[in-house]
């Protein structure tokens, strides 16, 4: 399929997700606790997408490769080395914003 409104159901059923480095895809996958292999294509992508993928990789949260090394990565990967990714805290933003606008 080209686009679905939500990949949530597919993700729930998956054991492994292989994705591009888009933030939404990465974060949604990590939040569902699924192992993630991020495939980057440095020639096509905006460089900034790489920043997040690289940081997530440095933190041990994702496996990281490019198109040509994907097969090798899948063959030699050890998913148990991946660390869980802690969730974000939109409630902190809500508290901050309440102070900014004067709702307290």
């Amino acid at each position: 399929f080209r686009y679905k409104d939500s990949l949530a159901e597919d993700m729930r059923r998956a054991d492994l997700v292989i994705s591009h480095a888009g933030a939404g895809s990465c974060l949604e996958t990590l939040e569902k606790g699924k192992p993630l292999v991020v495939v980057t294509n440095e020639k096509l992508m905006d460089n900034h997408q790489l920043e997040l993928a690289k940081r997530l990789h440095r933190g041990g949260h994702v496996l990281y490769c490019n198109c040509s090394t994907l097969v090798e990565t899948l063959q030699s990967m050890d998913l148990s080395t991946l660390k869980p990714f802690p969730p974000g805290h939109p409630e902190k933003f809500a508290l901050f914003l309440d102070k900014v606008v004067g709702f307290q």
Partner: protein
Amino acid sequence: TGGHTTEILRLLSCLSESYSPRHYVFAHSDKMSEAKIRSFEEKRADSQFTLDCIPRSREVRQSWISSVVTTLYSILHSLRLIYKRKPDLILCNGPGTCVPVCLSALLLGLLGMKRAIIVYVESICRVETLSLSGKILYYFSDHFLVQWPDLKDKYPKSVYLGRIV
């Protein structure tokens, strides 16, 4: 656009009903965002919202010269939009669409209209560098939030609350 919409909706997820009505602004070409927004609003008890489209000010990697023209066009649309909606607060997450909207709010504020508070939250994707929108709005926003500590160091006027999406 997609990622930004998801982030904005997460930022909104813990806001109280006092933040109403909500006016969503997105680029003409963006169909998926509309669907995501409707889905989010359907789940809220206090669903008062509107959807407005404006033309995109700049496509990724568009030339500088044509960008000036398209940005001016977007600014005209944004001025009309801000004048119509008269927001108290503008919250944005970085797509090019937000720059003319914020600049319009500033301009109309200078001309005597109620001044909107501009809160800019840089995208979670931005770990080490700011987006172009971020670089511009760092100087024009009232509150500028970043989600990674490297950016807090580079941009001292920013606010760092950790990851908020």
